């Protein structure tokens, strides 16, 4: 993206490390004068992408790579882990009616990222998983 400001980081697998990325995102967004409601939604996307990646990251390289590219118009979020990957189409879309009464209440991350973003892509293979999210900011 032309004129984008970028932030790249490698996050170790330690509790609440996603808050570091959130803090960085917040600073970029305020620097560009992004509206608070858009920042809030971007924080949800980043949080879900990182906790998903940390959960699936491998033992040999448990770190998660995160990159933000932001302009006043849009934010691109890249989150990459180096775990064993998974088949995205095999993940069941959660439904609150099914979750109530079920023991497993989790599994909302992909649905939230797909619904709250303006474009969502996931590439996964045995070398890891890469999530690319676009969020319009105006």
């Amino acid at each position, binding site marked *: 993206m032309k004129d984008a400001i970028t932030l790249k980081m490698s996050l170790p697998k330690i*509790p*609440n490390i*996603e*808050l*570091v990325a*959130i*803090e960085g995102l917040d600073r970029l967004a305020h620097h560009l004068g992004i509206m608070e*409601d858009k920042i*809030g*939604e971007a*924080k*949800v996307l980043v*949080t*879900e992408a990182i*906790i998903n990646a940390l959960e699936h990251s491998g033992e040999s390289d448990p770190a998660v790579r995160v990159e933000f590219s932001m302009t006043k118009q849009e934010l691109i979020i890249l989150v990459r882990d180096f775990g064993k990957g998974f088949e995205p189409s095999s993940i069941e879309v*959660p*439904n*609150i*009616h099914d*979750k*109530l*009464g079920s023991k497993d*209440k*989790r599994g*909302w*991350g992909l*649905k*939230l990222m797909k*619904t*709250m973003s303006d474009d969502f892509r996931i590439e996964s293979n045995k070398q890891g998983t890469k999530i690319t999210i676009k969020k319009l900011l105006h």
Partner: protein
Amino acid sequence: MEQQFSLSSEVRNNCLVITTTGYVNNVGGEAIAKEFARHFEGGTKKVIINLAQSKVVNSIGMSFLIDIVDQLNDAGGKMVFTNLDPAIHKMLSIMGLFQFAGKANTVDDALKELSA
């Protein structure tokens, strides 16, 4: 940066009001669930979750709240969320939680709703 999670609780008009501060993740969600369980065992079936001081949550933390909603539904009780940040409101809407839990602007509004 978002503060470390903590919570406080009080019982008002027979309703349990849980007020959180900081990031509601798996640890925060579990802490809310434990606080709820303590009162639920004593017969409390109306719960208000006040997220005024929590601006970041994640879906794992929210899964604990779905479990509370589940237990309250089975017991004929109700949960109401208050002081929701717009992004958290959108998140809970996407999850479909407002089909089974209420929402109010303030704790006082929630108390009125639960006493109606």
